[in-house]
């Protein structure tokens, strides 16, 4: 258990009378894809928000790489090695792909900009930052659209950029909220390959509705319904779990 890169214990989130996430515990390990599935409104995205610090949990605890990070703000978790992508594409639209990646890569020196001497340096001439951006761009296969404005890219490429920006911050843990949302079959295939390639160096949480992708990628599956985890285990076991079938997968899947 101790080598979990991200560990959550008893996370809950209450919005007024609604218990959106109810006592969820999970651990993410390197070289493992942990997929979270469940019907709309099950609390998957809220859970991701709790893990990434976008939202503060009502209760529960969080450890990142063995360190207690409960209640840490968003940006500190990010600096500590937690990267996340969003369900709704969340990039700097007017900027080019390269500028998006540079801004992401630069975030690893997040304190440097407060040194007044750095105000007289050029952001685009930092070789370390450029190298990080370059690596992320190559990994995500975005070199061909390097100088295109993100706003004019296709939805699928924007999703790739979204992931690439996360990679440019060189995280240990990836929280990916529906990376395949709205993608065509070919785009989805590219993305699945990318995630497959990222697996060995990262601990990955994957929230996804595309069941083909989920079963292709996941090592562990967690099923959520109404904010509660109803089953966790290897994909095959989940597939055969009667409770899950009733709640989510539908009778015909077995």
């Amino acid at each position, binding site marked *: 258990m101790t080598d979990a890169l991200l560990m959550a214990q008893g996370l809950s989130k209450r919005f007024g009378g609604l218990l959106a996430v109810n006592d969820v515990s999970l651990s993410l390990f390197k070289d493992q894809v942990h997929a979270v599935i469940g019907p709309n409104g099950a609390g998957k995205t809220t859970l991701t928000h709790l893990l990434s610090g976008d939202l503060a949990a009502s209760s529960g605890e969080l450890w990142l790489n063995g360190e207690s990070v409960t209640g840490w703000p968003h940006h500190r978790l990010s600096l500590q090695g937690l990267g996340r992508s969003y369900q709704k594409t969340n990039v700097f639209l007017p900027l080019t792909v390269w500028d998006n990646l540079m*801004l992401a890569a630069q975030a690893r020196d*997040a304190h440097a900009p407060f040194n007044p001497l750095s105000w007289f340096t050029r952001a685009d001439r930092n070789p370390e930052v450029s190298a990080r951006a370059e690596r992320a761009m190559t990994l995500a296969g975005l070199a061909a659209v390097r100088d295109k404005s993100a706003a004019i890219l296709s939805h699928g490429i924007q999703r790739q950029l979204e992931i690439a920006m996360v990679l440019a*911050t060189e995280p240990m843990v990836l929280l990916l909220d529906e990376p395949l949302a709205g993608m065509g079959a070919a785009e989805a295939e590219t993305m699945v390959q990318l995630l497959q390639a990222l697996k060995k160096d990262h601990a990955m949480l994957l929230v996804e509705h595309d069941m083909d992708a989920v079963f292709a990628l996941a090592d562990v599956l967690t099923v959520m319904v109404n904010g509660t985890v109803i089953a966790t285990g290897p994909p095959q076991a989940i597939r055969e779990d009667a409770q899950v079938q009733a709640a989510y997968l539908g009778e015909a899947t077995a």
Partner: protein
Amino acid sequence: MSAPQAHLETLPRSVQLLLVLGLIALVAFPFAGQDFYTQMVTRMMILAIFAMSLDLLQGITGLVSLGHAAYFGLAGYVLAFMSPADAGANILTTLPLAVLASALVALVIGFFVVRTQGIYFIMVTMAFAQMLYYLFFDNKGLGGSDGIYINVRPAVLGMDLENKLVLYYFTLVCMLLVYWFLRRLLWSPFGRTLNGIRLNEHRTQALGYASFNYKLTAFTLAGGLAGLAGYLWGAQTGYVNPELMGFHMSAHAIMMVILGGMGNVAGALIGAFGFELFLHLFKDLPKVGGFDMGKHWQLWMGALIVLVVIIAPQGLMGLLRSRKQDD
């Protein structure tokens, strides 16, 4: 989809040329112009510094402050308080102190206001500025509504701002330094991050940027630079009063930045000169029948700003840019 401005910051050739020509004109101006006009241009350059400092917030970081004049006026007061009754204050001590005072007050106020966004940010910056305004307006000890005279203008070594020509060139150098500084800042890691905050603050946080710290630093810097402008204003007019911190002063700066074009510093510079030129033009309008058109200059200025927003949403600089693209 209308093309979003990816590089609002890159200046087209035409603008660069305009700036160089403008610089030559400014260097040569005192030799050609009368004393009255030299003073008028000094005033324009001071306001250009003020407008550029606001652009750091408004155009680059996306924080529209309606209380920026507070830091402008404050530095003027610092100069007034530090000026002996019968001698000029020392520039080397009073100028840094005035700028520092403005920056410090901006830091304290910024600590509260940069937590807010959009319309709330506009309201609280204005509220704080109004508090400072009334603090000075209602306190006899701080000069009250009459303000304070600066009997002798500051000086140091051989440089005496009492001399109109010296003041002119001193202001020109300050303006160039501020322009250079902000242009450098724009392309620095800090500037890129501010740009990111304007475009998508939430994403910058997700990437690991503590956006609060960035916004607070920008607010403090902008306050300090506004202070530089306010100090020069005090040195030029020899007089400070609460109106320097007032709502009108803040609103004028916003209009200058909008008129010129936001987010690239050059626009604010051009906007300040443009605003003042139009202002003089409108004030000199003749009487038509019983209607004194010049007296109601604000009417024409308002119409002009509306017109600019409609036909050139990126300001006068945007006009140059789109003309260029049409070619």
